[in-house]
């Protein structure tokens, strides 16, 4: 160690040179950028400047901060990517939600106007309501179906590998594609059955309640296979000797299931519940391609709604992009973020307390 520091110490002039040159190049590049000069060397300056700064920092002859500097340099790629893709957009988004930004420019700060407005919009309140309804239905149905499939796939039937792959496969198809495939199925195949059974001439997708059911069916079909895999892993961790002991004591399969298997995979259930919860909240692609939010509600808070199956994420998208109200969409997105943040915090609390118990 001592030797290495000496090497660093010996490079003080180089280090300082690199640092100064790096900062100068970096700042020059940024200034050129802001001034809008068309100098093509700008990009090279920026890169060289950044390299120079890192190099200088690395060679900086300090024993006290050496470790910290190294840590920062190695963490930098991750921090940089995280900041560019998550932190900066989040901050900008919150900022934009207080303005009248239309995607091109903003003229004034409007304060909380966007936030106040969204709660007077019946279509948005409807979107919140059906999103919650969708989340509840999905949480129950996906977990139920996935758990049953997992039981099936951990039993001793033939062709287990095939079944596991087959149930998991829908999850590998993109949501948009899947939505269009199911749209075709619903409006062509299923309509023939519903026509015969309920004497309804039109497809499930043309009525709000049935279209809502259709979205749930597709989503369960898509997502259950993924959750199934987690349940399979959970079920496989149940020790064989416990099951064997239960069998020797004469427990029926049902007793084994309810008294041994389910209690032993309780942490898995918690994880799966929250996974389905957050993913159902964020559901967007199937919604977009299957119904595009259409469906009418004759009277909701005194309005005739035309977005019967539009969930929160899609509502945000169409507010911003289709209706061209970017700042209003941002405000809705911030609310969406708050809802999801609360759910995630609860999730972390619950799972970590479970871990302590274990």
């Amino acid at each position, binding site marked *: 160690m001592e030797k290495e520091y000496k090497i660093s110490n010996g490079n003080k002039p180089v280090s300082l040179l690199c640092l100064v040159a790096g900062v100068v190049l970096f700042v020059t590049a940024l200034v050129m950028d802001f001034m809008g000069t068309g100098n093509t060397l700008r990009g090279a300056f920026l890169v060289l400047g950044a390299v120079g700064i890192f190099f200088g920092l690395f060679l900086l002859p300090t024993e006290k901060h050496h470790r910290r500097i190294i840590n920062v340099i190695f963490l930098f790629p991750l921090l940089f990517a995280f900041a560019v893709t998550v932190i900066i957009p989040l901050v900008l988004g919150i900022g934009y939600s207080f303005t009248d930004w239309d995607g091109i420019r903003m003229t004034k700060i409007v304060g909380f106007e966007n936030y106040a407005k969204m709660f007077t919009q019946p279509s948005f309140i409807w979107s919140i309501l059906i999103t919650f309804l969708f989340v509840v239905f999905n949480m129950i149905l996906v977990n139920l179906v996935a758990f049953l499939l997992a039981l099936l796939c951990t039993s001793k039937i033939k062709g287990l590998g095939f079944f596991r792959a087959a149930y998991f496969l829908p999850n590998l198809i993109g949501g948009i594609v899947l939505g269009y495939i199911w749209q075709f199925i619903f409006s062509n195949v299923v309509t023939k059955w519903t026509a015969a059974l309920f004497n309804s001439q039109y497809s499930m997708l043309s009525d709000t309640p049935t279209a809502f059911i259709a979205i749930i069916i597709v989503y369960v079909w898509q997502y259950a296979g993924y959750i199934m895999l987690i349940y399979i892993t959970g079920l496989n961790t149940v020790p064989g000797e416990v099951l064997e002991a239960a069998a020797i004591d004469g427990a029926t399969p049902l007793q084994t299931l309810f008294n041994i298997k389910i209690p032993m995979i309780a942490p898995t259930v918690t994880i799966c519940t929250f996974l389905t919860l957050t993913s159902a909240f964020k559901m967007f692609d199937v919604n977009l391609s299957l119904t595009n939010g259409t469906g*009418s509600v004759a009277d909701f808070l005194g309005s*005739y709604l035309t*977005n019967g199956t539009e969930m929160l994420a899609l509502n945000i998208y169409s507010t911003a992009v289709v209706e061209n109200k970017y700042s209003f969409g941002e405000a809705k997105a911030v609310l969406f973020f708050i809802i999801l943040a609360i759910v995630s915090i609860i999730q972390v609390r619950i799972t970590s307390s479970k871990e302590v118990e274990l």
Partner: protein
Amino acid sequence: MKKKVFSLLMAGVMAFSLAACGGSSSTESTDSADSSTTESTESSESSDSGSTASGSVRLLNGKPEIDSQLQELAAKYKEETGGEVTIETIGGDTNASDELKKMYQADNMPDIFVIEANQAATWDGMLADLSGEAWTNDTDYELVDKSMGTIGFPYTVEATALAYNADLLEKAGIDPATLTSPDAWNKACETLDSKKDELGITAVFGWCAEPANLGWSSGTHVFGQYLDAGLKLDDTTYIDMLNDGGKIDEARMKKFAEFIGMMNKYSDPALLVDGTYDNQVAGFASGKYVFVTQGNWINGGVTGASDYSGFKMGFAPYAFDDGFDTIIAGPPSYWTVYSKGNVDGAKTFLQWVSDDSAQDILVNKAGLISPFSDCQYAAADPFYASIKSYMDAGKTSGWHTMLKKDGLQNETCQVFADYAKGTIATADDFVSTIKKVIESYYAN
């Protein structure tokens, strides 16, 4: 020591690769910004001569179906004048205006881009005034804004009304020229409906009010007939009312609703609520429907269908009141010039596009209808004769439906779908519902 050198190397590589990632895009934009600025200065010197290189121009096209023809156009431009034009196409489900906003934020704007008329206001102050260009004298269809001047170059004319199968109408003994009143329409529908088997048709209308994928058809085009049918090209009475807080003329809307009700009644129920654009066009091509609620853009789909019998086609007006005899015709979207881009290069290019050799490609190869009166090419479009007859007689109405508030079509299309399905039972209910929907949309 070795370890040290290695780790140093790694850190360097990491920092470099990242900085390169971060830097490369800016380098690129620098390049393009640089070249466009230098070239625009170049072109301002040389734009008079026209034939010399006038700098590279980027055009953002919103019609993917004519992408290859536009590439050909660019090649021809280079061959004739030496000017560079790059065509970038955005299409399918991607919204060009949304993409443009990203380009604007990234400081990567094309010099010429496509907009719909109601988007002009969002670009206020960034569109170059094209008035005084020679081509403006040859067309009635340029986009003129009161404060911004002439901002839109019309690259095509599209028409929409009730497209008909002329052969079937002839067989049934109906002259489409007489379909100018609700009574005439009702009578014609009854006749056609009674001769269904004889004519081999499934239904009189191929009208599809499915909202999720065809909302643009009902919500924009069919709704546009309420705004414009029977009016002069520049009559903005009903669009002005609509944009004044979402007001509608109830009497006119009622008549319109009754007409739509008639269409619902004589439509193919399999298509009406759950159909798709493909089914609609294919049904028309195979002679299953006499009328279809689309515009001349279906021509390729119809003539390209394997069971297309070669019938003649044309447009009949949405005559929901007596004496309505116009079809909606005009440019549905325009090419505009970005004022901070290569304006002179763009102007030179647009002037060239309005001239003979470019029109040859656009009309004969891309199948567009020319908005320019000095264009000598007759479009290959099977609807062309019909559209031309309306245009010559001055019986075209405007595309004012493109001026409604952004996204309104997504609301109104649902009302059309409910009316088609029967959830909204009468024309009066249709009027009161659509009134409510439009008002609340404008209020928000």
